[in-house]
């Protein structure tokens, strides 16, 4: 059964169209990364999935029901980009509040709260301090613990690693991986693209309110290959450029000792090497490099829509 289904969804505010014809579905246990430049519509997409805003057209279903239904609220956890807290409560009280709102048994509260705080690695000394005294990273940890409290089957995380130190970032990755093993469906928006690459099974790239790409992560990283060649220092740029032009390859990066070609077909590589040697380029080393999500992201942002 499809957990999330969006069909032809459009959201506009007056003449400003924020999301255009969004359609996709998510299967149980998938971890989906939603990436895109600032203002692409990621947050509005999440708002629609949370039932916080009503789509102008189209249908959004979560577990086959409206995102605003109570049944959906019971199985969905959410971490906003900038969570706001009752600053007069301490971390334990805040989580007790959410534990009770989630309708979980009070007798299990203490155990659940401590387990959540341990998972997000919040320093035990700070757990009874008022939240107003917390740093940005500590607030983010409390926000994540709040998501864990509800034992959700669907998690929507907007910039979960925002404001966290490197240990915090890897903690978020561990939590998402744990969810994936447990079969929890996760939608995560993040600018930590290396984390998205490590944790997500599929990635949607949003640009100007549209889904420009929606691919399996394995497809993306395998299909995008770079071929790097190194040579001794010398002015070989004109020769390298001439070879690239002849073989209709694009040069991604070039310096005095190396050049990086974008390769769409691996069969081009022997020919490229042959042509370079013929042109007098003293190739010392040649290797394939897979493109990471960050470089793909930059390519996609620079692509013409």
């Amino acid at each position: 059964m499809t957990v999330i289904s969006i069909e032809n969804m459009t959201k506009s505010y007056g003449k400003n169209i924020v999301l255009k014809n969004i359609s996709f579905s998510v299967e149980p246990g998938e971890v989906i990364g939603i990436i895109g430049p600032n203002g692409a519509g990621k947050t509005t997409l999440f708002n629609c999935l949370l039932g916080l805003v009503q789509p102008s057209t189209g249908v959004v279903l979560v577990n086959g029901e409206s995102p605003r239904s109570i049944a959906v609220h019971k199985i969905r956890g959410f971490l906003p980009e900038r969570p706001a807290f009752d600053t007069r409560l301490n971390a334990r009280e805040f989580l007790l509040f959410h534990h009770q709102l989630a309708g979980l048994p009070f007798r299990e509260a203490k155990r659940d709260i401590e387990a959540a705080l341990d998972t997000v690695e919040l320093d035990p000394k700070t757990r009874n301090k008022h939240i107003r005294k917390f740093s940005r990273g500590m607030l983010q940890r409390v926000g994540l613990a709040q998501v864990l409290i509800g034992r959700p089957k669907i998690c929507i995380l907007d910039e979960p690693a925002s404001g966290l130190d490197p240990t915090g970032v890897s903690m978020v990755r561990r939590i998402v991986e744990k969810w994936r093993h447990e079969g929890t469906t996760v939608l995560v928006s993040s600018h930590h693209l290396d984390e998205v690459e490590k944790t997500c099974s599929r990635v949607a790239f949003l640009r100007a309110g549209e889904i420009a790409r929606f691919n399996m992560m394995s497809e993306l990283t395998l299909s995008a290959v770079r071929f790097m060649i190194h040579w001794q220092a010398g002015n070989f740029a004109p020769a390298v450029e001439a070879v690239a032009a002849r073989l209709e390859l694009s040069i991604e990066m070039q310096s005095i000792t190396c050049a990086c070609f974008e390769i769409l077909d691996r069969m081009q590589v022997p020919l490229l090497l042959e042509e370079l040697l013929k042109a007098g380029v003293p190739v010392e080393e040649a290797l394939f490099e897979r493109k990471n999500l960050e470089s793909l992201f930059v390519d996609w942002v620079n692509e013409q829509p």
Partner: protein
Amino acid sequence: MNLTILIARVIVQWRRPWFLFMVLMYGVLFPLALTLSPTAATVKQSIPQPYYLLILAIYIQQAIPTETDGYLLLVFSRPLTRSSYMLSRWATNAFSMIVICTLSLCVFDMVPTLEMCPVPDSYILWNIFINCMEYAAVAQFYNQLRPFGQFIFATALAIVVGIGQLATLLTTGTGMTKVEYMEQAASSAQGFSSMLTANCNTYEALNRLNPDWSPLVIALSNTAIFLLLSACVVNGRELSYAEE
């Protein structure tokens, strides 16, 4: 109504120094000063003063600055309806107002010279209970409006009250009693403002041979109408943390 929200709101409210200051001011110091007045007995029997209560209600609502969209969407991502959240907030604020007003009644009761007050405390307590619920509902509606809506609401209220006061002044103090339109203005302004601030005095209404239930009905219907309006506003509201 959601008990978790209610308890959490009460805890958060009573932990705020500003709120405690307000309790001290309106619940103790202000009434203590009024006991020195020669008309203290009259003041005591009308403890839930309409405009005073309205200001108190709105101030209590505004004294908690956590009601941002970022806070609400964390709460609304939990399995509870927006209406039950709104009702819980209203109950919290009504409770706080009742506590403050009851405290001020206790202060009046501690002054022995006021024993001659004709209205029994039981009636005053009923007045406090009914009026606080009503004004908390008005304030709840006010709080659900966006800043622009709050400005319109406050301006409309100020104009209505201002016209009423001005008309009353002109018609009573300056010999302009014959000016019919002024009387009409006063009467319509008072009528409109009484819709927002109808004061229910159970002693006057019920302590007679033929009890008049209308003030009680008006207060309860006002409470229901403003809660219904608040529910409509909160349910129709689109939350977006991106806008903050």
